[in-house]
Each structure stands twice: as structure tokens, then as C-alpha cells.
């Protein structure tokens, strides 16, 4: 009887795993099947032409801009905030409220952030529909992610390291820089990777703050179209599934490369720290 139960359970587990992998394979397979014929160097490296043909180079550049700018702002702020919450703040009600707030922020749908960005950065701060407006909005979206993951990473640093360092008559700041942050670095990095994924995958918030101009951005104050927004628009306006799928392939490859790089760096760091 219990063998039968075991068998059923095992079948269920297998089924669930198979379903998950199956769906992934199906999606990736569909995208590659539809889009691979469009992929070539010209498609990637040439300007977009609304008359058909042309490439996605401006969108790649716009996407890279948003990643770099929002990470450049959110990473230091997020890490500092997490360090404050975890290492310095007295664990009381205020910290609980801040934690609750950051947790809630991760659950808000991105369109809401987009609306806020459109009202605040685009209109009130007069930054206009631009890469900078989108990047600032994205900063708010990924900040809680970076704070949470950095906090988790700091939690895993053994208390014994802190004590060992402080017992040698070092200051809290020295301990933080030389012992705690290096040990937490792999975890912090994984938070940054997660955020990159979030930025690349974001479309609604960017659509509302950076606009849809399909030309090479002249500066970070120009309106631009990122890859995801482009993919949405070509499907929506032209019904061009092949093109959308080809953009999907490019996105998948970018994410894959970023993940591998980050894993590689974090392994390297791990080894230099032992």
C-alpha cells in the first residue's frame, strides 16, 4: 500500500517537473522556431526602418542604457540601505516598518510604477519621456530587490566573523569593508543579476516613461524604445510575430550571457575569498 502511495507521489513529482521544463522548452522552442530566420548580423547591428527590414540596434542600445543607469543608481543606494538595516539600525519598530515597506514595494505591479514615473519624473521633474526617466523609474522597481537580497546575504555572514574582527580592535567600518562585505559579495551579486533580469524584462513602466521613439537615442534625455517595448509594439501594431520572436531570441541570449558572466564573477570572488 505504502509502495503504491510512494509510486503515485513520485509520478506527481515527475509530472510537475516535466510540466515546468516542458513549458520552458515549448516557449523557447516556439520563439526560436518563429524568429531564428530573421536573426543575422545586419538585423542586430543596423538601424530600425519602419518600412520593414532594418534592425534593432537602437533598441539594444536603449536597453543597455536603462540597465547601466538604473543599476548604477540602485546598487549603491540599495547596498547602503541594506547595510544600515542589517548592521547598524537598532532592530525595532522603525526597521520593521522599513522592511515591510520594501517587501510591499516588490509586490506592486510595474504599470503602477510606470504611472508614478510618468507623473513624477516625466512631468513634475520635467525630464520628459526619456531614458533617464525610465531608468529612475526602474531604479525604484529594483531597489527593494537589491535591498532584500543584500540583507539576506549579510545575514548569512557568520556572527563569528564580526566578533573576530571587532575583538582585534578594528572599527565597525573596517569590519564591514574588509570582512563582512567581501563574504556577502556573492549573494549581493546574485541580487544584482536578478535586478538586471527585472530591468530587461520590464516593458509597461518603460513604455510610460521612455516612450516609443524607434531611433538611436542621442543622449540619456532622448526618448527611446527598449527591446521589450519594441517587441510589444511590433506585435501590437504590425502583428509581426516573427520579428517579435527574433527580438525574444536576442533577449534570451542577453539574459543568458549576463547570468553566466555574473555566475563566473561570483565564483571568481568566492575563490579569491576561499
Amino acid at each position, binding site marked *: 500500500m505504502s509502495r503504491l502511495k510512494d509510486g503515485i507521489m513520485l509520478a506527481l513529482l515527475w509530472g510537475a517537473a516535466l510540466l515546468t521544463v516542458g513549458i520552458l522548452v515549448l516557449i523557447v522552442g516556439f520563439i526560436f522556431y518563429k524568429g531564428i530566420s530573421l536573426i543575422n548580423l545586419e538585423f542586430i547591428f543596423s538601424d530600425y526602418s519602419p518600412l520593414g527590414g532594418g534592425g534593432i540596434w537602437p533598441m539594444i542600445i536603449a536597453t543597455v542604457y536603462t540597465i547601466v543607469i538604473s543599476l548604477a543608481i540602485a546598487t549603491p543606494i540599495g547596498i547602503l540601505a541594506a547595510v544600515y538595516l542589517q548592521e547598524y539600525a537598532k532592530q525595532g519598530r522603525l526597521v520593521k516598518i522599513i522592511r515591510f515597506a520594501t517587501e510591499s514595494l516588490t509586490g506592486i505591479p510595474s504599470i503602477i510604477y510606470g504611472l508614478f514615473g510618468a507623473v513624477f519624473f516625466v512631468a513634475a521633474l520635467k525630464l520628459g519621456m526619456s531614458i533617464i526617466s525610465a531608468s529612475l523609474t526602474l531604479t525604484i522597481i529594483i531597489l527593494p530587490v537589491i535591498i532584500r537580497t543584500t540583507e539576506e546575504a549579510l545575514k548569512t555572514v557568520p556572527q563569528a566573523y564580526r566578533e573576530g574582527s571587532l575583538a582585534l580592535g578594528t572599527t565597525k567600518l573596517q569590519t564591514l569593508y574588509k570582512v563582512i562585505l567581501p563574504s556577502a559579495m556573492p549573494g549581493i551579486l546574485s541580487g544584482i543579476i536578478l535586478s538586471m533580469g527585472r530591468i530587461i524584462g520590464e516593458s509597461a513602466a518603460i513604455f510610460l516613461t521612455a516612450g516609443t521613439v524607434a531611433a538611436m537615442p542621442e543622449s540619456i534625455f532622448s526618448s527611446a524604445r527598449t527591446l521589450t517595448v519594441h517587441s510589444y509594439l511590433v506585435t501590437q501594431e504590425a502583428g509581426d510575430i516573427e520579428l517579435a520572436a527574433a527580438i525574444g531570441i536576442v533577449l534570451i541570449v542577453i539574459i543568458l550571457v549576463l547570468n553566466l558572466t555574473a555566475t563566473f564573477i561570483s565564483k571568481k570572488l568566492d575563490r579569491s575569498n*576561499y
Partner: protein
Amino acid sequence: MAIAILERESAAGEKVPETNIKISVRNLNLFYGEKQALFEVSIDIKEKEITALIGPSGCGKSTFLRTLNRMNDLIDGVKISGSIVIDGQDIYKSNDVIKLRTKVGMVFQKPNLFPMSIYDNVAYGPKMHGIRNKAKLDQIVEESLRGAAIWDEVKDRLKTSALGLSGGQQQRVCIARAIAMKPDVILMDEPTSALDPISTLKVEELLDEMKKDYTIVIVTHNMQQAARVSDRTAFFLNGEIIEFAETSKIFSTPDDQRTEDYVTGRFG
């Protein structure tokens, strides 16, 4: 209790020349929030001796040890009254915790080397205190590792991970790391409790050697260890010092019945 008071008076009194006393603790009370963990602890710890703190789990011996370099400051809600005077200075009246901790080093229960090379671990303290000269650091690292009787075992692998060493070796590198700061006092919180018997023996031999240069206060759960290595022993129970005397006396003819019961293994 009467004996503890008596002991305290003689410790504070005339017999012992003042110059020999390194650490003088008077009426120390410690609270974790509402809960009192130490009660009116008074003890004189002599220079270049090994003082052992024994007692059952939760008796306050580790808590007491951690007051001597103010490691309890790291815990929220700890309140302290009374005085701890080291070299004529009340350590709770001065706010220079950094200076205190360079003078009073600590070795913990479990080896807690940082995830760095052996060399970097030992050089960490001096570096953080501004020593940048490579030759000087090399010299400190070698001296400290020799001082912790581990130089010969690690001299060919100084640049490799400290975490690749055995537990016993790691603990001796921890001792070297503490020595590198050239402290006067070294506090040890059950330094051999995580080690195998052979490593324990090595650390004990080392303690005997280190006594020439350092004042050592060691918390131990192992009564044979206290008997083997220490000059004086304080017996803690429920946050009080029940008896403090020469180790030979504590283990042969203690004055207090509770001390006798504990050292003969009737409880604890």
C-alpha cells in the same frame, strides 16, 4: 557566599602587591534587559598568570569574560554596573573600545578565521591599525605564528586559505591572530571545546608557554583542563563567583561545599 566575600577582601587587600594585579573587578553586575546575569562579581586577576573560569553552563563565566574586552557591547540591551580596572584604567569609564581591544585580545570557542589566506588573517589586525610596511608585516606574521607554535606547520602555505587547515591548526592561527596585536591580556572562551584531544593538548602546551608574556583568562568547561593549565581558578554559579583561589586549592580542598560538589562532578 561568606567565602566569596572573604576571598574578595584578601584579593583587594595587603597580601598581594598591587603591581601584580592586571585586572581588578569590583561589584560587577550585568543585565540582559531585565534579566540579571552577573551578581556583584569581584575578582583580581594577576599579571602573567593563567586564570581559569569554571562553572556549569549558563553560570555567567563567558558573559563575564566578554565584559573584559567589552564584547557584550555588541548585544542590544546589556547594562553594566560596577568597575573593571585594567592597568589603572576603568574600561567602562573610557570610551576607547578600540584601544581596549588591542590590549585585551580574544580567542573564541570555535575557530573563526576569516575567509582569507593564513597570512592575511594574521596580518589583518596590524594592517587595520595602519601597518603597511611589507617587511614589518612579514615579521609580525612570522613572530605571531611562531608564538602560537604553528609556524612550522604553515610556513610553506601562508598564501593558501586559512579555512583549509584542521580545526586545531585554525585555532592556533586564531591565537596567532590575537598575538599579532601584541596584547597584554588574552581572553579565551572555551578555546579547545571544538578540538580533538591531540589538538587540545597542543593548545594547552602553548598556553603554558604563552604565560611568560601574557595574562591569560580562560573559560573552560573541562575541569581537568583548568586543573592542568591554570594558576588560579574562579568557580562561577548562577552569575556569582562562589570561590576564587589557587587552582590546587580549588581542586583539592575548596572552602565551599558547592565548589567541591562541582569539581568532584556531583553536578554540572
